[in-house]
């Protein structure tokens, strides 16, 4: 390890996209538009080796994500391996594809925690959002299996126009499902969410009402459920410290083994992502150009460079800077100090200006193959 490397913090979490296969078609999915095929997926031995390396590097949390991680037949074996090497294991699941037997096997293998997504508190709307008939009922069953197995449950709800009126109801639903923690996250516009942005974005007034409703429930449910609240970007004054800072807290590994500083990083042109098949995790974390590209503050331009918040939000999200300002080295335009901020406000106003807000907008569902553009 070089002297420079010593200044680079140890990663806390590794998010393993075990597969991009998923039965659901959620229009806000954070996976890339070009999903990786099953034939390219890393095998069991490769994943075990990656997690061993991660533990040795100082990673604490192993997150199994996707796609739907339960689509991997070796999920139990991978979980057991992670438990053996001392990692805290977190299953991020849609619930569809789980069985009661599988949940029990995962619990016995040492799984520490499960996070279950819900699309809405009402079945019909939830199934429509997921693009999967019967998903809601299967998720209810999955929640029961998870809590019966003694596993702590987090419910994750992504908020957008079709369910924004029920943000508080979804917290109540999470309590009813036996969750100890709920994540209420307003949609962030990357990947599939970006192409569905016009159908997903609520008005500022809708978003504010939802935020107030959820915040009020913190007191109601103190000591019962922990509420983690991710408020919407586009109506904010300052950006979020995306990923807690680039190359600072965690990394993603895609189904085929590409290591990414965040799940949307592949949208940034000019970055070369090393693969775990060819490089050690340690080498990737400390030495790859992609992980060093936006580390710390040296890469920043104005207004970030002289900003007192530069080590608080690290200039926000690089992918969003790229999408909205045309260059990943710009300040995240969500920041009111960005010269491109007007564009964000404009997008927000377009949503707010829609006279009739359609609560059942047409989506481009996440599928293996992106539909051809209509034009």
């Amino acid at each position, binding site marked *: 390890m070089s002297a420079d490397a010593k200044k680079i913090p140890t990663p806390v979490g590794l998010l393993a996209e075990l597969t991009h296969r998923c039965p659901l078609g959620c229009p806000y999915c954070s996976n890339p538009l070009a999903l990786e095929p099953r034939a390219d997926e890393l095998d069991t031995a490769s994943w075990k080796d990656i997690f061993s390396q991660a533990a040795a590097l*100082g990673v604490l949390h192993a997150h199994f994500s996707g796609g739907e991680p339960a689509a991997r037949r070796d999920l139990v074996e991978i979980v057991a391996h992670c438990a053996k090497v001392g990692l805290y294991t977190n299953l991020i699941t849609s619930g569809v594809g789980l069985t009661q037997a599988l949940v029990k096997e995962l619990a016995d293998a040492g799984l520490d925690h499960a996070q279950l997504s819900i699309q809405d508190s009402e079945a019909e709307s939830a199934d429509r959002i997921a693009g999967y008939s019967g998903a809601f009922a299967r998720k209810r069953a999955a929640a029961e299996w998870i809590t019966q197995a*003694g596993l702590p449950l*987090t419910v994750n709800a992504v908020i957008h126009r079709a369910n924004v009126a029920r943000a508080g109801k979804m917290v109540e639903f999470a309590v009813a499902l036996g969750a100890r*923690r709920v994540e209420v996250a307003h949609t962030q516009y990357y990947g599939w969410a970006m192409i569905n942005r016009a159908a997903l974005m609520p008005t500022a007034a809708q978003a504010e009402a939802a935020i107030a409703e959820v915040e009020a429930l913190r007191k109601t449910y103190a000591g019962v459920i922990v509420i983690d609240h991710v408020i919407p970007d586009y109506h904010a004054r300052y950006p979020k410290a995306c990923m807690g800072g680039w190359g600072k807290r965690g990394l993603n590994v895609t189904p085929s083994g590409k290591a990414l500083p965040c799940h949307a990083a592949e949208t940034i042109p000019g970055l070369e992502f090393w693969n775990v098949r060819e490089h050690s995790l340690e080498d990737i974390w400390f030495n790859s150009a992609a992980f060093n590209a936006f580390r710390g503050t040296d890469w920043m331009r104005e207004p970030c460079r002289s900003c007192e918040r530069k080590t608080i939000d690290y200039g926000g999200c690089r992918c969003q800077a790229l999408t909205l300002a045309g260059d990943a080295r710009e300040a995240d335009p969500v920041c009111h100090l960005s010269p491109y901020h007007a564009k964000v406000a404009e997008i927000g106003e377009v949503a707010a200006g829609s006279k009739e807000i359609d609560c059942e907008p047409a989506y481009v569902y996440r599928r293996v193959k992106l539909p051809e553009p209509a034009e």
Partner: protein
Amino acid sequence: MSEESQTTSVSRPRLPRGVRLKHDETRGEWLLLAPERVIKADAIAVAILQRCDGIATFDAIVDDLAAAFSADRGRVEADVRALLENLAAKRMVDL
């Protein structure tokens, strides 16, 4: 605050499944690991949390710590209560 995060003398606090106290070799420190959370645990927190086994009562834990550290019982009790109620509110300890 709800009843679930109130400590009583007969509470038997424990770390629920999904919360782990771990000595991390890489960082050389004790950490409390929970879903999406990592909290550094200082020596006092470690001493308290290592006794939260779901068997020992709150009073027994306080007695044990006061004896082990030759400390004032009232002070120890206040420290233990503050830590456990804080963590219970985060659902990282069951009382």
